């Protein structure tokens, strides 16, 4: 069974946020508003954070793109009282929207702020995709067209692309990748099977210094960063 992971090269990343926007475009993630940003209620499946240190003129800002980490030991799964979030065999952590009771315990537990809550119903937009689930098995975590008010949502590693790709016999990581990986103009992102030593992700990790976010919490994130 594959273990899907993502490698993000911070040296190649240009901080353009194409990943942030293309994720919203791919997954019908709603946009926010000034009020929602002030009250931290904007929904992002993928965000970018800035960490600045130093004093003029010796300043450094690190821009870090952050999807869901799809941790190997996901705290969100542990705490969910309704078993609405769980980890697939291939390591992708998914959300069952119908089981979610909106308690937001998972949001508290996630050390990465990867999860967002639907405080209001999402407005339908002309540019949204309307895909139907391919079969009954994918029904429960199927995110399209939109999620309902009262549930938590987050990055899915675009499992809809992966599952469809596998069905069509395509190579995941080269022919099929999540939307953010595809959209990155500087080619800073790679996706693939961490357990396959031939995969580009494994090769990158073998050749460069890398780190994960908040490693001390032992969540074992599967989004790994290559240092600058």
């Amino acid at each position, binding site marked *: 069974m594959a273990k899907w992971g993502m490698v993000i090269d911070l040296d190649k990343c240009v901080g353009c946020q194409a990943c942030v926007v293309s994720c919203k475009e791919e997954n019908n993630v709603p946009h926010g508003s000034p009020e929602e940003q002030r009250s931290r209620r904007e929904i992002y499946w993928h965000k970018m954070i800035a960490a600045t240190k130093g004093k003029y003129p010796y300043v450094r800002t690190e821009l870090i793109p952050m999807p869901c980490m799809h941790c190997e030991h996901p705290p969100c799964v542990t705490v969910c009282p309704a078993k609405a979030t769980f980890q697939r065999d291939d390591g992708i952590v998914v959300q069952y929207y119908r089981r979610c009771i909106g308690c937001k315990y998972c949001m508290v537990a996630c050390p990465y702020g990867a999860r967002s809550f639907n405080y209001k119903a999402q407005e339908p937009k002309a540019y949204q995709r309307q895909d139907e689930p391919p079969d009954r098995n994918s029904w429960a975590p199927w995110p399209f067209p939109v999620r309902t008010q009262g549930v938590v949502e987050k990055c899915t590693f675009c499992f809809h692309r992966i599952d469809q790709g596998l069905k069509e016999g395509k190579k995941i990581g080269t022919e099929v990748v999540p939307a953010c990986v595809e959209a990155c103009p*500087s080619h800073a992102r790679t996706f693939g099977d961490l357990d396959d030593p031939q995969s580009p992700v494994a090769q990158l990790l073998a050749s460069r210094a890398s780190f994960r976010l908040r490693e001390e919490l032992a969540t074992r994130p599967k989004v790994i960063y290559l240092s600058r």
Partner: protein
Amino acid sequence: MGAKRDMDDHLSGADEKGGRCSRLSRRKFLKLTAMAGLSVGAIGIHKQSDSAPSVQPGDASTAKGRWISTSCLNCPARCGITVKVAGEKAIQIKGNRSSLISEGEICPRGHIGLQVLYDPERILSPLKRSQPEKGKGIAPQWKPISWDQAIEEIVGKLRTLRDTFQPHHLLLLSGLNSRSNEDLLSRFAEAFGTPNLVSGDGLDREAEKTGNWMADGHFDACAYDLDQTNYLLSFGADLLESTPPVARWLRKWGRLRREKPTRTKVVDVQPRYSLTASKSDEWIPIKPGTDAALAMAMAHVIIREELFDHSFVKEWTVGFDQYRQIALQHYAPETVSKITGIPAETIRRIAGEFGRTRPALAIPGKGAIAWPGGSYTSYAIHCLNALVGSIDVPGGILYQESPGYRAVPNVAYDEIARKGFEQPSLDLHGTEGFPAAQVVTNQVPRSLLEGKPYPIKMAIGFNSNFNMTAPATGQWEEALKKIPFYVHVAPFISEMAEFADLVLPSTTFFEEWGYDHSSPGAGSAEVRIKQPVVQPIGDSKSIGDILFHLAERVPGGVTKAFKDVGGSAEGFVRFRTSSLLPWEEFLKKGVWKGPAYEYGKYPRIFHTPSKKFEFVSGNLRALQIKKGRSVKEEIPSSPHYSDLKWLGEEGQYPLVLFPYQPLLTFGNGSQNYPWAQEIFLPLQGVGWVSPAEINSETARSLNLRDRDEVWIESPFGKIRTRVKVSEGVHPGIVCIPCGQGHTSYGKWQKGIGCNPNEVIGIDFDVLSGQSAFFNTRVKIYKA
């Protein structure tokens, strides 16, 4: 019963049966659309919905969609894109892999195009002003009218101008338009007989182009080879945010850093710790406006240490001895250190690195050249590239090839047009005030206010928004009031449209025919198609078709000029690209690529008197001689630094205003796009605002804290925003991002942020007509 409930549930947005959802039942939807139809007359602008309640299940699934090749126009890069259309809606945008310039990649603005297309507040029909008074904040009270009515009124006035032999009283304004629309516009202006077609170029990088022209005769921004460049030195160029073509820089950055054997070193020299600086190897803060001094100091070091490319300099340049003298005599690092604030050691080190690493590129940015004297700054920077042999070589500067479009028949001037062209142009380009300029955008409001050289009777603006994007927006507002009849053509009500008598709704680039090419690009020529991916929204029409429509109805030279060039926007595109590739192939692929770039064309690439690269500008000398005694003052013809002249006294206005263009607003006319707004400033981690960033020490000395509400006041006005205390700002400046502070329309942009252009004064680089953006001084105090 079950089937009907399913239908209602789906239309009401339920993703699964029984889930809570938005409440729009089918019955309600039908009611609402009927009511919406009734409300058109009352409100004046029919707000279109950007929702899709009527899409049947499965129709808009991506599996059933098709990809259409076209090109973006959110900024001047005009990148090739493909758009997925499903259920008659555009639902996804990707880059076009056939395009060489960015290797098929696009920036986030490309994706945000979906919100541009489906902007709920687009204009859907022609509008007529019913409030006679014009001014900022005065509601025009638009009344929708038919296209026939609108065209009739416009044509009537155009005909009157021609009948009275006053075609020059027509002013045409052009903002960001496709190349095909630009070509049609200039054809219209030519045939009509008006010398007054003014683009926004005068606000952009004319000084950069003039500096290049002084050296090698190319009045253009340089193209860069990039794949093999080993050293990048940015002089105030925000490479990853606003240096066109942006998507090219984004792709090539990845290549330069980690996809070649040696990692390219990048150094960013500018007063602000930009996003580019954060990704570069070094950020070197510099006193604003002193880039020419730094460039000359680098020349000093490179020459003194004999690091320059001896063979190129000897064989293919002239004037080196004079240049060398100037650099060695006047620009020692110790001297320049006092001017720029950069330690002499750093200047020596960077110059040494630049001189020893081949190929190296020095890149001018707006922050360096949009100053009085900016042409010489651009010249000085361009000379650095020549010094190290980076001209027309792999990894160096390229001369952008133009596409060989099929030639249109020459415009035959009728006697009315000839009369018009005898008149001087409103922007005074090429006159003694602006001798080398091709367009002086910001002279226009002055000319309009003074009524000189003659008053304007009618103006038409195509996607122009100069009272938002030009310095001294207030002057533009006063000037626009003086135009008796102004027609605005755009998809939305911009700040400029608010002064219009008539508004024509034009299509966005998603709904029209066109051809586009970026300059600069990748060196080799490339043309990208624009074709409709969806039907025009509302009653909008493409600018190309509007021009053909007008031309048919203005008899004489104009009608003649628009015969035999394709008959319509689509026909024109087909005509012009017929020399490049078969139409069917162009429709499918979306891109035509010219022959591979040829390097080292030295015998024929320099358009100068000596046919070589000139460190002393023969082109400029020739221009001076041509203008003869009409040139105002002795104009130096070598690169140099001159002392800065400020607008505002240093004592009263202690800080320098430093506006900048983030990626998400660079080159746009509207910011009514929530996807762009919410992530606006990634370095500061905020959206929906435009803060004034000041250095922490400066803040302390002014007793200002983070998030304090402040006024930023110049001699010309004041704006209000919040402070952001930052370590990444030179102590003598205050940085404000551009693109916010909209006042005309937009739920997602109106009243958000502030517009620094409101307080910037009018000043120019005299040679090029470039508007200066950075020499206005301000004071900042608590509101």
